Structures are given as structure tokens and as C-alpha cells.
């Protein structure tokens, strides 16, 4: 399984999660975990997803998510989970 962490940061508004989830569903990306919090007034959402079934290349997903973020006025990033795992787990 190839795990990716998707983060969404920005001003809260209606339908952010719906929009991102729709994109993921359409691209066969399974959501394993989802959580959200408010940091310094900003909406922060994190999803851990499984990208092993998606036919799209990582670069393409990265760009398309970025594009969705621009449309709804938030910043969406996708990163391989390893960077967080390595930094915070021994």
C-alpha cells in the first residue's frame, strides 16, 4: 500500500471536504483516516489515503489537487507519508 498524506489549509467554507473526497473517489483513492482542526484561525484538514489503486501518476494527482485548492480558495498538498513517519516515529 502506498500511503499519501493530503493536507488542506485555508479559510473554512461549505463543501471543502466534499470537493476533495469526490476527486479522490473518482480517482480510486481510498481514504484511510481523516481529521481536522483549527490552527490560528485557519481550517486544517489532514487525510491519509491509499494511492496504490489509482491509475494516475503522483505528479498528476499533485497538480489536480492543487488546482481544486485554487478553485475553492485553500491550499492542498499531497506528500508521501514517509516524511512524517520518519520524522515522528523511531
Amino acid at each position, binding site marked *: 500500500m502506498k500511503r499519501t498524506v493530503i493536507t488542506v489549509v485555508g479559510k473554512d467554507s461549505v463543501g471543502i471536504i466534499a470537493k476533495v473526497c469526490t476527486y479522490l473517489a473518482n480517482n480510486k483513492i481510498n481514504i484511510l483516516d481523516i481529521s481536522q*482542526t483549527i490552527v490560528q484561525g485557519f481550517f486544517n484538514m489532514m487525510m491519509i489515503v491509499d494511492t496504490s489503486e489509482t491509475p494516475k501518476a503522483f505528479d498528476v494527482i499533485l497538480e489536480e489537487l492543487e488546482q481544486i485548492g485554487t478553485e475553492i480558495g485553500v491550499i492542498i*498538498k499531497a506528500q*508521501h507519508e514517509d516524511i*512524517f*513517519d*520518519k520524522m*515522528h*516515529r523511531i
Partner: protein
Amino acid sequence: MINIHEVIETNKMIEQENLDVRTITLGISLLDCAGPDLAEVNAKIYDKITTTAKDLVATGNKIQREYGIPIVNKRISVTPIALVGAAACKTVEDYVSIAKTLDRAAATVGVNFLGGYSALVSKSMTASDELLIRSIPQALSQTERVCSSVNVGSTRTGIDMNAVKLLGDIILETAQLTKEKDSIGCAKLVVFCNAPDDNPFMAGAFHGVTEGDAVVNVGVSGPGVVKKALESVRGADFETLCETIKKTAFKITRVGQLVAQEASKMLNVPFGIVDLSLAPTPAIGDSVAEILEEIGLEYAGAPGTTAALALLNDQVKKGGVMASSFVGGLSGAFIPVSEDQGMINAVEAGALTLEKLEAMTCVCSVGLDMIAIPGDTKATTISGIIADEMAIGMINQKTTAVRIIPVIGKTVGDRVEFGGLLGYSPIMPVNQFSCDNFINRGGRIPAPIHSFKN
């Protein structure tokens, strides 16, 4: 599973605190390119570098995108050219032709610096070593991406004072030949004692003869992350301070380790080492001097600076060593002047002198780094500064280095702009008293005793 606060913490380090991987450096052995025919040597060098490193830049960019961590530089280090060119090079111009080949190869694969136009002369120089050293001014003024280094001493062999003397002249000549660009050639020349074989950082990187055919070494950075972490423990005691640095260094280094392993896998080249260095840039919030200020000093250079730097350096190593399977290179806090806004401020405020910098180099890597001095400084004085720094390295069994820039046409009170990551610097005053008779003696300083340490 990773939680949201850990994800936010990591991304804050990257987005707001300048966490990055400073360099992925691909070390390439050129020993198999040596031979008596210069044209053939040049062709082999070009082919080997452009073949081995053809995917380096693309790989760095791919890792950057997939993990969301900036990888600032992709670079190459090669076998010291004095060894590779020894059989083929009979004149200074012969060596310069190799420098040009290296420059061309670096441009082809898209790296901004290539290190290894080097000679290892810690005991004495061969004819070939001396020829290479004499070719440095021309090589550095006629190329853009080539970096040069000379190892003139070690704890095991002592210091080759003939080479130290020669390098005083070479540095001045390099400054003279690049005077139109504020003597920037000297920013690409490092004089070492105890030079490591696996240093990924420029300008002193070279691929040592103890290394394999090719190797991936990674240099991490992150002074901004350490500074931010220390802001949360203001006023706390030294135990808390040290623990905070250690934990932060661990996290930074883990990223370096991950990047090194990924790069190694993608390039199909063995992973060498992670260099645990705090490498500043001129960007605000990416400064080692600001960490020293956060520890409690008004400016870097104030009394207490050496102690603060010693503990910083030591804790970075303690945290980093466990985070990586192989640690090497220079591994320590860098204290360049022009590349660190906090150091520049300290010099301009009159808090930091060349002598204090020398004391600081006793407890950290690397040495007198990116220091601009008046262009009319005598060659023997430059050699004297080098000799002092080499002696610190030799006696203390550590790497020390000098990267000093006599800026032709400028003097104390002036300021010099190198641009980009090299930054800017005020010209620092140099002690005016002579060391001519000392430097002119010639010969070498014997290796030090390894017991009775006091």
C-alpha cells in the same frame, strides 16, 4: 498512524522555518579516467560524469515533489583532480583544460557546482599537486561551476607549510583574476586540515580515494527550525535547552536520511552518509547566528559565544547521530559570515572579529568561512591566517578550513556583494603585524603528539 499535529509540525518547519535538504551530492570516482593522453582523459571524464549523473537533477526534483521538502542543490564531487591528471598534465594549461571539461560536464547535467578540483598535500606536494595548485587561479577564473580545495595538513601528518605559503599567493592571484566580480573566485576555493572524504557541501566537496565508484551523500540544514524550537524554551536552563536542540536535530536529520535513501534507490547508487550540518543561508530566519542570539547572546561574538556554539554543535550531533544510519562529512554548525544574516549583523555591529571567529572554529565545523578581507592584504598574512586555522584542526583532531576572500580594490568599511546563496559581507579588518619570517621558513610542521592532551 501519523496524527494531524505531527503533519502540521512538519509542514510548518518546511513552509515557515526554512527546513530543507541543502544538497544531494553525487560522488563520482574518476580514478579510471587517468592516463597519459590528455585529450583521452578529458573525454573519459566528461563521459563518466555525464553518464553517472545524468538523472541526478531529475531525481532530486522528483523527491522534492513527492515529499514536499525543498532540495536546494544537486551537486557533484569527483576524485581529487591532482590524482586523475597526474600522468597527463605537464603544464598549468593542461590542468585548466580538465577544469573546463568539469565545467562543461556540470553544465550538461545541470548542477550548479562540481567539487574536486583538488589536491591532497598534507605532508608534501608532488610535482603534479603543485602544478594543479598553481593552475587554480586560472581554473577558477575561467570556469563557472568548478570548486577547488587543497588539504594542507592533518593530525597524522602535520602541516605542509610550503603548500600553506604557496596558497597565500594563489588566493591573491585568484582574487586578482576575478576582481571584476568582487574576487568571487576565492569563494570557490577551500584550504583544509583533516579534509573528510565524503563531504557533500561546497566548495570543499571532493570524492575521496577511500570511496567506492559512486556514492550519494546528503547535507541537511535547518537553522531556522532550531531557532524556532528554542523560542519556546526562553529562560529555561541548559538541560532543557540542550534537550530541545537534540530533539530538533533528530527530526531534521531523519528527513535527510529519508531523502538520501530515496535518492540512492532511484539513482541505483549506494548511500554514503548524511552530513549533520546546520548550514545557514542569507535568508531571514535561516541563520546560525540567530540561534546563538536565541541561546542568550546580544550578537554572535559576544562573550559566551564559543560556549554557546560548542553546546549547539554537540547537541546537533547527539540528536543527529541516532537519526541516520551513516553520519559523515563535516557534521557541525557552519559559521560563514557572508552567508548568514545574523553573522553579517554581528560584524557590522562590531561584535564579531576575525580573532573571535577563529576561537569559534575550535568547537564547530568548519572554519573561517566566506570572510571578506581587504584586497591589499599580504600573501604571507593570508598564509599566516591559514596556518593558524590548520594548527587548530591538527591539534584538535578535527576538520578546519579557510575560505577567505581578499576583495581587490576594497578595504575596511566597504561592503561586497557575492549574490545568491553566497550573500554579502562587510570587509573585515585583518591584524596588520607581519608574519613574513614565519611563513618564509618553508618545510613542514611535524605531526603532533597524541598523548598528554592539555
